Protein backbone atom coordinates (compact mmCIF):
# COMPACT_ATOMS: atom_id res chain seq x y z
CA UNK A 1 0.00 0.00 0.00
CA UNK A 2 1.22 3.47 -0.76
CA UNK A 3 1.30 5.93 2.12
CA UNK A 4 -1.61 8.37 2.16
CA UNK A 5 -0.70 11.94 1.20
CA UNK A 6 0.13 14.23 4.08
CA UNK A 7 -2.91 15.82 5.68
CA UNK A 8 -5.19 13.33 3.92
CA UNK A 9 -8.40 12.91 5.85
CA UNK A 10 -8.43 9.51 7.56
CA UNK A 11 -11.67 7.62 7.07
CA UNK A 12 -13.31 4.58 8.59
CA UNK A 13 -12.18 2.48 5.61
CA UNK A 14 -8.59 2.93 6.81
CA UNK A 15 -9.26 0.87 9.95
CA UNK A 16 -12.39 -1.18 9.27
CA UNK A 17 -14.34 -3.19 6.72
CA UNK A 18 -18.10 -3.49 6.29
CA UNK A 19 -20.99 -5.17 4.48
CA UNK A 20 -24.58 -3.98 4.03
CA UNK A 21 -27.75 -6.03 3.80
CA UNK A 22 -31.46 -5.30 3.52
CA UNK A 23 -34.74 -6.58 4.86
CA UNK A 24 -37.79 -4.68 3.66
CA UNK A 25 -37.18 -0.98 4.23
CA UNK A 26 -34.51 -1.63 6.87
CA UNK A 27 -30.81 -1.68 6.08
CA UNK A 28 -28.10 -3.13 8.26
CA UNK A 29 -24.40 -2.41 7.98
CA UNK A 30 -21.89 -4.48 9.92
CA UNK A 31 -18.50 -2.85 10.52
CA UNK A 32 -15.36 -4.63 11.77
CA UNK A 33 -12.06 -3.21 12.99
CA UNK A 34 -9.11 -4.89 11.24
CA UNK A 35 -7.01 -4.39 14.36
CA UNK A 36 -8.34 -4.87 17.88
CA UNK A 37 -6.35 -1.81 18.91
CA UNK A 38 -8.58 0.39 16.71
CA UNK A 39 -11.89 -0.89 18.08
CA UNK A 40 -12.17 1.72 20.84
CA UNK A 41 -11.68 4.46 18.23
CA UNK A 42 -14.24 2.84 15.96
CA UNK A 43 -16.80 2.67 18.77
CA UNK A 44 -16.14 6.28 19.73
CA UNK A 45 -16.38 7.59 16.18
CA UNK A 46 -19.26 5.50 14.89
CA UNK A 47 -22.15 6.24 17.18
CA UNK A 48 -25.75 5.63 16.23
CA UNK A 49 -26.43 9.33 16.79
CA UNK A 50 -23.69 10.41 14.37
CA UNK A 51 -24.94 8.13 11.61
CA UNK A 52 -28.52 9.25 12.07
CA UNK A 53 -27.43 12.90 12.08
CA UNK A 54 -25.15 12.60 9.04
CA UNK A 55 -27.77 11.19 6.66
CA UNK A 56 -31.05 12.83 7.67
CA UNK A 57 -32.73 12.53 4.27
CA UNK A 58 -31.73 8.91 3.80
CA UNK A 59 -32.31 7.50 7.28
CA UNK A 60 -35.89 8.42 8.18
CA UNK A 61 -36.22 6.07 11.15
CA UNK A 62 -34.12 5.24 14.18
CA UNK A 63 -30.58 3.88 14.13
CA UNK A 64 -29.70 1.02 16.46
CA UNK A 65 -26.15 -0.11 17.19
CA UNK A 66 -25.22 -3.57 18.41
CA UNK A 67 -21.68 -4.09 19.72
CA UNK A 68 -19.96 -7.44 19.24
CA UNK A 69 -17.16 -6.76 21.65
CA UNK A 70 -15.15 -9.98 21.32
CA UNK A 71 -15.07 -9.83 17.50
CA UNK A 72 -14.45 -6.06 17.39
CA UNK A 73 -17.57 -5.43 15.37
CA UNK A 74 -20.52 -3.05 15.25
CA UNK A 75 -23.85 -3.76 13.61
CA UNK A 76 -25.98 -0.78 12.62
CA UNK A 77 -29.66 -1.25 11.93
CA UNK A 78 -30.95 1.70 9.90
CA UNK A 79 -34.73 1.83 9.99
CA UNK A 80 -36.70 3.35 7.12
CA UNK A 81 -33.42 3.90 5.28
CA UNK A 82 -34.00 2.34 1.85
CA UNK A 83 -36.16 4.99 0.17
CA UNK A 84 -39.19 2.80 0.74
CA UNK A 85 -37.37 -0.47 0.20
CA UNK A 86 -36.64 -2.53 -2.84
CA UNK A 87 -40.35 -2.46 -3.75
CA UNK A 88 -40.68 1.26 -4.18
CA UNK A 89 -37.19 2.74 -4.38
CA UNK A 90 -36.15 3.99 -7.79
CA UNK A 91 -32.54 4.25 -6.64
CA UNK A 92 -30.31 2.23 -8.97
CA UNK A 93 -29.14 0.45 -5.82
CA UNK A 94 -32.59 -0.30 -4.48
CA UNK A 95 -31.19 -2.78 -1.93
CA UNK A 96 -28.79 -0.20 -0.46
CA UNK A 97 -25.86 -2.56 -1.03
CA UNK A 98 -23.58 0.47 -1.26
CA UNK A 99 -24.58 1.84 2.15
CA UNK A 100 -21.53 0.04 3.61
CA UNK A 101 -19.42 2.62 1.80
CA UNK A 102 -21.45 5.48 3.27
CA UNK A 103 -20.19 4.33 6.67
CA UNK A 104 -16.66 3.52 5.45
CA UNK A 105 -16.40 7.01 3.92
CA UNK A 106 -17.00 8.83 7.22
CA UNK A 107 -14.05 10.71 8.65
CA UNK A 108 -12.29 9.39 11.74
CA UNK A 109 -11.58 12.83 13.13
CA UNK A 110 -14.83 14.77 13.01
CA UNK A 111 -17.02 12.64 15.22
CA UNK A 112 -18.11 15.80 16.98
CA UNK A 113 -19.19 17.44 13.73
Amino acid at each position, binding site marked *: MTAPPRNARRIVRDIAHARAGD*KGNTSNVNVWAYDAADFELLKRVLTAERIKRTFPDLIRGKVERYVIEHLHGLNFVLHDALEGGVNSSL*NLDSHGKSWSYLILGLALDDDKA
Partner: protein
Amino acid sequence: MTSAVFRIGTGAGFSADRLDPAIDLVERGKLDVLVLECLGERTVAFSHRDRMADPERGYNAHLRRRMQALLPVCAAAGTTMITNMGAANPRAAAARTLEIARALGLKGLKIACIEGDDVSAVVPANQPFMDEVGTLADVGMPVVGMNAYLGADAIVPALVAEAGVIIGGRLADPSMFLAPLAHRFGWDAADMPRMGAGSLIGHLLECGMQITGGYFADPGVKDVPDLANCGYPIAEVQSDGSAVITKLDGTGGCVTTSTVKEQLLYEVHDPARYLTPDVTADFSRVQIAEVGKNRVKVSHASGTARPQTLKVTVGFDGGFQGEAGVSYAGPAAQERGRLAAQIVRDRLSRVHGIKSDLRIDLIGVNSLFATAGISAADAQDLRLHVALRSPAKEDAELMLWEVESLLCCGPAGGGGFRGSIVPCVMTKSVLIERERVKPTLSVFVA
Protein backbone atom coordinates in the same frame (compact mmCIF):
# COMPACT_ATOMS: atom_id res chain seq x y z
CA MET B 1 -18.74 -45.79 6.37
CA THR B 2 -20.27 -42.72 7.94
CA SER B 3 -17.51 -40.26 8.67
CA ALA B 4 -17.51 -38.23 11.88
CA VAL B 5 -17.34 -35.03 9.85
CA PHE B 6 -20.26 -33.99 7.67
CA ARG B 7 -19.27 -32.10 4.53
CA ILE B 8 -21.82 -29.67 3.17
CA GLY B 9 -21.25 -27.14 0.41
CA THR B 10 -23.02 -24.41 -1.50
CA GLY B 11 -23.52 -24.66 -5.26
CA ALA B 12 -25.53 -21.45 -5.65
CA GLY B 13 -26.16 -18.55 -3.29
CA PHE B 14 -28.73 -16.76 -5.41
CA SER B 15 -30.86 -17.33 -8.48
CA ALA B 16 -28.23 -16.28 -11.03
CA ASP B 17 -25.15 -17.67 -9.27
CA ARG B 18 -22.33 -19.40 -11.21
CA LEU B 19 -22.49 -23.01 -12.30
CA ASP B 20 -18.92 -24.03 -13.21
CA PRO B 21 -17.52 -23.68 -9.66
CA ALA B 22 -20.45 -25.80 -8.41
CA ILE B 23 -19.47 -28.64 -10.75
CA ASP B 24 -15.87 -28.40 -9.54
CA LEU B 25 -17.05 -28.42 -5.94
CA VAL B 26 -19.03 -31.63 -6.37
CA GLU B 27 -16.32 -33.35 -8.40
CA ARG B 28 -13.54 -32.69 -5.90
CA GLY B 29 -15.29 -31.76 -2.66
CA LYS B 30 -16.37 -35.20 -1.37
CA LEU B 31 -19.60 -33.61 -0.21
CA ASP B 32 -22.38 -35.31 1.68
CA VAL B 33 -24.78 -32.55 0.66
CA LEU B 34 -24.79 -29.75 -1.91
CA VAL B 35 -27.25 -26.89 -1.35
CA LEU B 36 -28.39 -24.56 -4.10
CA GLU B 37 -30.06 -21.52 -2.57
CA CYS B 38 -31.77 -19.69 -5.41
CA LEU B 39 -34.67 -17.77 -3.95
CA GLY B 40 -34.90 -14.20 -2.74
CA GLU B 41 -38.12 -12.63 -1.51
CA ARG B 42 -38.84 -11.00 -4.81
CA THR B 43 -37.62 -13.96 -6.86
CA VAL B 44 -40.65 -15.92 -5.65
CA ALA B 45 -43.00 -13.18 -6.75
CA PHE B 46 -41.35 -12.96 -10.18
CA SER B 47 -41.64 -16.74 -10.46
CA HIS B 48 -45.36 -16.53 -9.74
CA ARG B 49 -45.67 -14.10 -12.64
CA ASP B 50 -43.85 -16.61 -14.86
CA ARG B 51 -46.18 -19.38 -13.72
CA MET B 52 -49.25 -17.28 -14.45
CA ALA B 53 -47.97 -16.81 -18.00
CA ASP B 54 -47.19 -20.53 -18.38
CA PRO B 55 -48.37 -23.17 -15.83
CA GLU B 56 -45.36 -25.33 -16.69
CA ARG B 57 -42.91 -22.62 -15.62
CA GLY B 58 -42.38 -20.64 -12.43
CA TYR B 59 -39.20 -22.41 -11.32
CA ASN B 60 -35.60 -21.22 -11.51
CA ALA B 61 -34.62 -20.13 -15.02
CA HIS B 62 -31.30 -22.01 -14.85
CA LEU B 63 -32.75 -25.27 -13.51
CA ARG B 64 -32.25 -27.26 -16.70
CA ARG B 65 -28.58 -26.33 -17.14
CA ARG B 66 -27.85 -26.80 -13.46
CA MET B 67 -29.51 -30.22 -13.28
CA GLN B 68 -27.93 -31.47 -16.50
CA ALA B 69 -24.49 -30.57 -15.20
CA LEU B 70 -24.87 -31.45 -11.53
CA LEU B 71 -27.06 -34.58 -11.44
CA PRO B 72 -24.38 -36.86 -12.94
CA VAL B 73 -21.55 -35.55 -10.77
CA CYS B 74 -23.72 -35.67 -7.62
CA ALA B 75 -24.70 -39.26 -8.45
CA ALA B 76 -21.06 -40.22 -9.01
CA ALA B 77 -19.94 -38.61 -5.76
CA GLY B 78 -22.88 -39.83 -3.68
CA THR B 79 -23.84 -36.23 -2.91
CA THR B 80 -27.42 -35.33 -2.05
CA MET B 81 -28.70 -32.09 -3.60
CA ILE B 82 -31.09 -29.81 -1.71
CA THR B 83 -32.50 -26.76 -3.49
CA ASN B 84 -35.32 -24.25 -3.50
CA MET B 85 -35.10 -23.88 -7.29
CA GLY B 86 -38.75 -24.98 -7.41
CA ALA B 87 -39.63 -21.36 -6.58
CA ALA B 88 -43.33 -20.88 -7.41
CA ASN B 89 -43.69 -24.33 -9.02
CA PRO B 90 -41.77 -27.13 -7.24
CA ARG B 91 -43.97 -29.77 -8.89
CA ALA B 92 -42.97 -28.68 -12.40
CA ALA B 93 -39.32 -28.34 -11.31
CA ALA B 94 -39.37 -31.92 -9.99
CA ALA B 95 -41.03 -33.19 -13.18
CA ARG B 96 -38.42 -31.47 -15.31
CA THR B 97 -35.61 -32.84 -13.12
CA LEU B 98 -37.07 -36.34 -13.43
CA GLU B 99 -37.01 -36.06 -17.22
CA ILE B 100 -33.40 -34.89 -17.15
CA ALA B 101 -32.38 -37.71 -14.78
CA ARG B 102 -33.98 -40.29 -17.05
CA ALA B 103 -32.38 -38.80 -20.15
CA LEU B 104 -29.02 -39.01 -18.37
CA GLY B 105 -29.65 -42.67 -17.50
CA LEU B 106 -29.63 -42.06 -13.73
CA LYS B 107 -31.95 -44.97 -13.11
CA GLY B 108 -33.26 -45.26 -9.57
CA LEU B 109 -32.44 -41.67 -8.56
CA LYS B 110 -35.06 -40.49 -6.08
CA ILE B 111 -36.34 -36.95 -6.55
CA ALA B 112 -38.30 -35.45 -3.69
CA CYS B 113 -40.70 -32.58 -4.14
CA ILE B 114 -41.69 -30.51 -1.10
CA GLU B 115 -44.85 -28.45 -1.43
CA GLY B 116 -47.24 -26.73 0.93
CA ASP B 117 -45.41 -23.42 1.13
CA ASP B 118 -48.08 -21.83 -1.08
CA VAL B 119 -50.53 -20.55 1.52
CA SER B 120 -52.65 -18.32 -0.68
CA ALA B 121 -55.71 -20.41 0.22
CA VAL B 122 -55.35 -19.87 3.97
CA VAL B 123 -54.23 -16.25 4.34
CA PRO B 124 -57.18 -13.86 4.57
CA ALA B 125 -57.27 -10.72 2.42
CA ASN B 126 -57.22 -8.48 5.49
CA GLN B 127 -54.15 -10.10 7.11
CA PRO B 128 -52.10 -7.39 8.87
CA PHE B 129 -48.51 -6.75 7.76
CA MET B 130 -45.67 -8.23 9.80
CA ASP B 131 -43.70 -5.05 10.40
CA GLU B 132 -45.77 -2.07 9.31
CA VAL B 133 -49.22 -0.58 9.69
CA GLY B 134 -51.98 -1.85 7.41
CA THR B 135 -53.23 -5.07 5.85
CA LEU B 136 -52.85 -6.88 2.54
CA ALA B 137 -56.14 -5.37 1.38
CA ASP B 138 -54.61 -1.87 1.55
CA VAL B 139 -52.05 -2.57 -1.20
CA GLY B 140 -54.54 -2.31 -4.04
CA MET B 141 -52.52 -4.41 -6.48
CA PRO B 142 -53.28 -7.92 -7.75
CA VAL B 143 -51.76 -10.69 -5.56
CA VAL B 144 -49.54 -13.06 -7.55
CA GLY B 145 -48.63 -15.52 -4.77
CA MET B 146 -48.13 -16.15 -1.06
CA ASN B 147 -45.38 -18.40 0.25
CA ALA B 148 -44.60 -19.40 3.82
CA TYR B 149 -40.98 -20.04 4.80
CA LEU B 150 -40.67 -23.79 5.45
CA GLY B 151 -38.14 -25.01 7.99
CA ALA B 152 -35.96 -28.06 8.49
CA ASP B 153 -38.93 -30.12 9.67
CA ALA B 154 -40.35 -29.95 6.14
CA ILE B 155 -37.08 -31.18 4.61
CA VAL B 156 -36.07 -34.00 6.99
CA PRO B 157 -38.78 -36.42 5.73
CA ALA B 158 -37.23 -36.22 2.24
CA LEU B 159 -33.86 -37.16 3.74
CA VAL B 160 -35.49 -40.04 5.62
CA ALA B 161 -36.90 -41.18 2.27
CA GLU B 162 -33.29 -41.24 0.97
CA ALA B 163 -33.96 -38.84 -1.88
CA GLY B 164 -30.90 -37.93 -3.94
CA VAL B 165 -32.42 -34.64 -5.04
CA ILE B 166 -34.72 -32.56 -2.85
CA ILE B 167 -36.59 -29.73 -4.51
CA GLY B 168 -38.83 -27.23 -2.80
CA GLY B 169 -40.15 -23.72 -3.19
CA ARG B 170 -39.88 -21.30 -0.30
CA LEU B 171 -37.55 -23.45 1.81
CA ALA B 172 -35.88 -21.09 4.28
CA ASP B 173 -32.24 -20.55 3.35
CA PRO B 174 -30.55 -21.77 6.56
CA SER B 175 -33.04 -24.62 6.96
CA MET B 176 -31.72 -26.31 3.80
CA PHE B 177 -28.38 -26.67 5.61
CA LEU B 178 -29.73 -27.37 9.09
CA ALA B 179 -32.02 -30.22 7.94
CA PRO B 180 -29.27 -32.59 6.71
CA LEU B 181 -27.10 -31.79 9.74
CA ALA B 182 -29.95 -32.55 12.15
CA HIS B 183 -30.75 -35.72 10.20
CA ARG B 184 -27.17 -36.99 10.12
CA PHE B 185 -26.30 -36.18 13.73
CA GLY B 186 -29.68 -37.03 15.20
CA TRP B 187 -30.21 -33.56 16.64
CA ASP B 188 -33.60 -33.14 18.31
CA ALA B 189 -35.62 -30.27 16.87
CA ALA B 190 -36.15 -29.13 20.47
CA ASP B 191 -32.40 -28.91 21.08
CA MET B 192 -32.25 -25.18 20.51
CA PRO B 193 -28.47 -24.73 20.93
CA ARG B 194 -27.94 -27.33 18.15
CA MET B 195 -30.63 -25.74 15.99
CA GLY B 196 -28.83 -22.43 16.46
CA ALA B 197 -25.45 -23.97 15.61
CA GLY B 198 -26.76 -25.60 12.43
CA SER B 199 -28.54 -22.39 11.46
CA LEU B 200 -25.28 -20.46 11.83
CA ILE B 201 -23.62 -22.82 9.35
CA GLY B 202 -26.56 -22.36 7.00
CA HIS B 203 -26.50 -18.61 7.42
CA LEU B 204 -22.77 -18.46 6.69
CA LEU B 205 -23.03 -20.69 3.60
CA GLU B 206 -26.36 -19.63 2.11
CA CYS B 207 -24.90 -16.76 0.08
CA GLY B 208 -22.26 -18.94 -1.55
CA MET B 209 -19.07 -17.05 -2.31
CA GLN B 210 -19.93 -14.18 0.02
CA ILE B 211 -17.90 -16.13 2.60
CA THR B 212 -15.05 -17.23 0.31
CA GLY B 213 -13.99 -13.80 -0.89
CA GLY B 214 -16.89 -12.86 -3.13
CA TYR B 215 -18.46 -9.48 -2.41
CA PHE B 216 -15.41 -8.72 -0.27
CA ALA B 217 -12.62 -7.39 -2.48
CA ASP B 218 -11.62 -3.76 -2.00
CA PRO B 219 -8.29 -3.29 -3.76
CA GLY B 220 -5.55 -1.97 -1.53
CA VAL B 221 -7.24 -2.86 1.75
CA LYS B 222 -9.02 -6.17 1.09
CA ASP B 223 -7.24 -7.87 -1.80
CA VAL B 224 -8.65 -11.24 -2.82
CA PRO B 225 -6.54 -13.68 -4.86
CA ASP B 226 -7.90 -14.88 -8.22
CA LEU B 227 -11.43 -13.60 -7.58
CA ALA B 228 -12.49 -14.51 -11.13
CA ASN B 229 -11.96 -18.16 -10.20
CA CYS B 230 -13.56 -17.93 -6.76
CA GLY B 231 -14.56 -21.23 -5.17
CA TYR B 232 -17.82 -22.01 -3.40
CA PRO B 233 -17.70 -22.74 0.34
CA ILE B 234 -17.57 -26.04 2.19
CA ALA B 235 -18.40 -26.55 5.88
CA GLU B 236 -16.82 -29.50 7.65
CA VAL B 237 -19.30 -29.95 10.46
CA GLN B 238 -18.80 -31.82 13.75
CA SER B 239 -21.61 -33.45 15.70
CA ASP B 240 -21.46 -30.67 18.32
CA GLY B 241 -22.39 -28.13 15.65
CA SER B 242 -18.99 -26.49 15.31
CA ALA B 243 -17.54 -26.35 11.82
CA VAL B 244 -14.56 -25.39 9.72
CA ILE B 245 -15.44 -23.17 6.77
CA THR B 246 -13.15 -23.77 3.82
CA LYS B 247 -13.01 -24.14 0.03
CA LEU B 248 -11.31 -26.33 -2.53
CA ASP B 249 -7.58 -26.07 -3.11
CA GLY B 250 -6.84 -24.53 -6.48
CA THR B 251 -9.83 -22.19 -6.48
CA GLY B 252 -9.66 -18.43 -6.14
CA GLY B 253 -10.95 -16.37 -3.27
CA CYS B 254 -10.09 -16.65 0.42
CA VAL B 255 -11.64 -17.75 3.68
CA THR B 256 -10.47 -15.57 6.54
CA THR B 257 -11.86 -14.39 9.86
CA SER B 258 -12.78 -11.16 8.03
CA THR B 259 -14.80 -12.84 5.26
CA VAL B 260 -16.61 -14.89 7.91
CA LYS B 261 -17.37 -11.84 10.07
CA GLU B 262 -18.91 -9.87 7.20
CA GLN B 263 -21.22 -12.77 6.44
CA LEU B 264 -21.98 -13.47 10.12
CA LEU B 265 -24.17 -10.37 10.39
CA TYR B 266 -25.24 -10.07 6.77
CA GLU B 267 -28.96 -9.22 6.85
CA VAL B 268 -28.97 -9.75 10.62
CA HIS B 269 -30.39 -7.14 12.99
CA ASP B 270 -30.08 -8.20 16.66
CA PRO B 271 -27.21 -10.74 16.65
CA ALA B 272 -28.77 -12.52 19.63
CA ARG B 273 -32.17 -12.95 17.98
CA TYR B 274 -32.07 -14.11 14.37
CA LEU B 275 -35.44 -15.62 13.53
CA THR B 276 -35.76 -18.67 11.29
CA PRO B 277 -38.59 -21.21 11.07
CA ASP B 278 -36.44 -23.54 13.23
CA VAL B 279 -35.02 -21.41 16.02
CA THR B 280 -34.40 -17.96 17.43
CA ALA B 281 -30.70 -18.16 16.69
CA ASP B 282 -28.10 -16.45 18.87
CA PHE B 283 -24.96 -15.44 16.96
CA SER B 284 -23.80 -12.92 19.58
CA ARG B 285 -21.20 -15.19 21.20
CA VAL B 286 -19.90 -16.95 18.10
CA GLN B 287 -16.18 -17.71 18.14
CA ILE B 288 -14.27 -17.32 14.87
CA ALA B 289 -10.71 -18.64 14.62
CA GLU B 290 -8.32 -19.22 11.75
CA VAL B 291 -7.07 -22.81 12.00
CA GLY B 292 -5.20 -23.00 8.70
CA LYS B 293 -4.89 -21.34 5.33
CA ASN B 294 -8.43 -20.79 4.05
CA ARG B 295 -9.74 -22.69 7.09
CA VAL B 296 -11.80 -20.83 9.70
CA LYS B 297 -13.45 -22.53 12.64
CA VAL B 298 -16.83 -21.28 13.86
CA SER B 299 -18.41 -22.38 17.13
CA HIS B 300 -20.54 -21.26 20.09
CA ALA B 301 -23.69 -20.33 18.20
CA SER B 302 -26.79 -21.02 20.22
CA GLY B 303 -30.51 -20.49 20.17
CA THR B 304 -33.81 -20.30 21.98
CA ALA B 305 -37.35 -21.38 21.11
CA ARG B 306 -38.47 -21.13 17.51
CA PRO B 307 -41.12 -18.51 16.61
CA GLN B 308 -44.72 -19.68 16.87
CA THR B 309 -45.51 -18.03 13.56
CA LEU B 310 -44.05 -18.43 10.09
CA LYS B 311 -43.19 -15.53 7.83
CA VAL B 312 -45.13 -15.37 4.57
CA THR B 313 -44.00 -13.38 1.55
CA VAL B 314 -46.93 -11.99 -0.39
CA GLY B 315 -46.15 -10.94 -3.94
CA PHE B 316 -48.14 -8.40 -5.94
CA ASP B 317 -48.11 -7.44 -9.58
CA GLY B 318 -46.27 -4.11 -9.41
CA GLY B 319 -46.73 -2.97 -12.99
CA PHE B 320 -43.71 -1.85 -14.99
CA GLN B 321 -40.45 -0.03 -14.47
CA GLY B 322 -38.84 1.90 -17.29
CA GLU B 323 -35.24 3.06 -17.24
CA ALA B 324 -33.57 5.26 -19.81
CA GLY B 325 -30.38 7.27 -20.11
CA VAL B 326 -28.32 9.70 -22.16
CA SER B 327 -24.69 10.65 -21.42
CA TYR B 328 -22.90 13.99 -21.30
CA ALA B 329 -19.16 14.62 -21.03
CA GLY B 330 -16.67 17.47 -21.01
CA PRO B 331 -16.95 21.12 -19.94
CA ALA B 332 -20.25 21.96 -18.20
CA ALA B 333 -21.45 18.37 -18.53
CA GLN B 334 -23.26 18.74 -15.20
CA GLU B 335 -25.10 21.88 -16.29
CA ARG B 336 -26.20 20.18 -19.51
CA GLY B 337 -27.24 17.05 -17.62
CA ARG B 338 -29.29 19.05 -15.14
CA LEU B 339 -30.99 20.95 -17.97
CA ALA B 340 -31.87 17.63 -19.60
CA ALA B 341 -33.35 16.42 -16.31
CA GLN B 342 -35.54 19.55 -16.04
CA ILE B 343 -36.79 19.06 -19.60
CA VAL B 344 -37.75 15.41 -19.04
CA ARG B 345 -39.48 16.15 -15.75
CA ASP B 346 -41.39 19.09 -17.23
CA ARG B 347 -42.55 17.31 -20.39
CA LEU B 348 -43.61 14.09 -18.69
CA SER B 349 -45.83 16.09 -16.39
CA ARG B 350 -47.05 18.91 -18.66
CA VAL B 351 -47.28 17.26 -22.09
CA HIS B 352 -48.11 13.69 -21.07
CA GLY B 353 -49.82 14.21 -17.71
CA ILE B 354 -47.83 11.36 -16.16
CA LYS B 355 -48.03 11.33 -12.38
CA SER B 356 -46.10 8.08 -11.81
CA ASP B 357 -43.13 7.71 -9.46
CA LEU B 358 -40.20 9.32 -11.25
CA ARG B 359 -36.56 9.62 -10.32
CA ILE B 360 -33.79 11.31 -12.26
CA ASP B 361 -30.12 10.86 -11.35
CA LEU B 362 -26.86 12.08 -12.83
CA ILE B 363 -24.69 8.97 -12.69
CA GLY B 364 -21.14 10.04 -11.97
CA VAL B 365 -22.25 13.06 -9.95
CA ASN B 366 -24.72 11.57 -7.52
CA SER B 367 -27.00 8.59 -7.97
CA LEU B 368 -26.62 5.81 -5.39
CA PHE B 369 -25.68 8.38 -2.73
CA ALA B 370 -27.99 11.17 -3.91
CA THR B 371 -30.31 10.89 -0.90
CA ALA B 372 -27.29 10.64 1.38
CA GLY B 373 -26.25 14.08 0.14
CA ILE B 374 -22.89 13.04 -1.32
CA SER B 375 -21.84 14.20 -4.79
CA ALA B 376 -18.76 14.45 -7.00
CA ALA B 377 -18.55 18.17 -7.70
CA ASP B 378 -15.93 17.95 -10.46
CA ALA B 379 -17.46 15.11 -12.52
CA GLN B 380 -17.29 15.75 -16.28
CA ASP B 381 -18.39 12.36 -17.63
CA LEU B 382 -21.87 11.53 -16.51
CA ARG B 383 -25.12 9.89 -17.42
CA LEU B 384 -28.64 11.15 -17.07
CA HIS B 385 -30.61 8.22 -15.71
CA VAL B 386 -34.39 8.36 -15.62
CA ALA B 387 -36.44 5.71 -13.80
CA LEU B 388 -40.22 5.50 -13.69
CA ARG B 389 -42.61 2.94 -12.24
CA SER B 390 -46.26 2.69 -13.25
CA PRO B 391 -49.09 0.16 -13.44
CA ALA B 392 -49.42 1.33 -17.08
CA LYS B 393 -46.77 0.15 -19.48
CA GLU B 394 -47.60 3.10 -21.72
CA ASP B 395 -46.24 5.54 -19.12
CA ALA B 396 -42.88 3.77 -19.25
CA GLU B 397 -42.95 3.76 -23.06
CA LEU B 398 -43.63 7.51 -23.16
CA MET B 399 -40.78 8.14 -20.74
CA LEU B 400 -38.35 6.22 -22.97
CA TRP B 401 -39.53 8.22 -25.96
CA GLU B 402 -39.04 11.53 -24.13
CA VAL B 403 -35.50 10.63 -23.05
CA GLU B 404 -34.58 9.49 -26.55
CA SER B 405 -35.94 12.75 -27.97
CA LEU B 406 -33.19 14.60 -26.06
CA LEU B 407 -30.80 13.42 -28.78
CA CYS B 408 -32.11 16.11 -31.13
CA CYS B 409 -34.19 18.35 -28.87
CA GLY B 410 -32.13 18.49 -25.67
CA PRO B 411 -28.87 20.10 -24.52
CA ALA B 412 -25.72 19.98 -26.67
CA GLY B 413 -23.52 16.93 -26.87
CA GLY B 414 -25.84 14.28 -25.45
CA GLY B 415 -25.32 10.76 -26.75
CA GLY B 416 -25.66 7.08 -26.05
CA PHE B 417 -29.39 6.62 -25.48
CA ARG B 418 -30.49 3.26 -24.09
CA GLY B 419 -33.84 2.35 -22.61
CA SER B 420 -35.59 -0.72 -21.23
CA ILE B 421 -38.86 -1.70 -19.60
CA VAL B 422 -39.20 -4.60 -17.17
CA PRO B 423 -42.14 -6.00 -15.19
CA CYS B 424 -42.17 -5.20 -11.46
CA VAL B 425 -43.30 -7.04 -8.41
CA MET B 426 -44.02 -5.73 -4.97
CA THR B 427 -43.75 -7.84 -1.83
CA LYS B 428 -45.12 -7.58 1.68
CA SER B 429 -44.60 -9.83 4.69
CA VAL B 430 -47.24 -11.27 7.01
CA LEU B 431 -47.12 -13.89 9.77
CA ILE B 432 -49.35 -16.93 10.15
CA GLU B 433 -49.60 -19.59 12.84
CA ARG B 434 -47.35 -22.49 11.87
CA GLU B 435 -50.16 -25.02 12.40
CA ARG B 436 -51.88 -23.63 9.33
CA VAL B 437 -48.96 -24.51 7.06
CA LYS B 438 -48.93 -28.16 5.96
CA PRO B 439 -45.81 -29.19 4.05
CA THR B 440 -46.20 -32.23 1.80
CA LEU B 441 -43.68 -34.65 0.29
CA SER B 442 -43.82 -36.51 -3.02
CA VAL B 443 -41.03 -38.81 -4.21
CA PHE B 444 -40.43 -39.72 -7.85
CA VAL B 445 -38.02 -42.41 -9.02
CA ALA B 446 -36.09 -42.02 -12.26
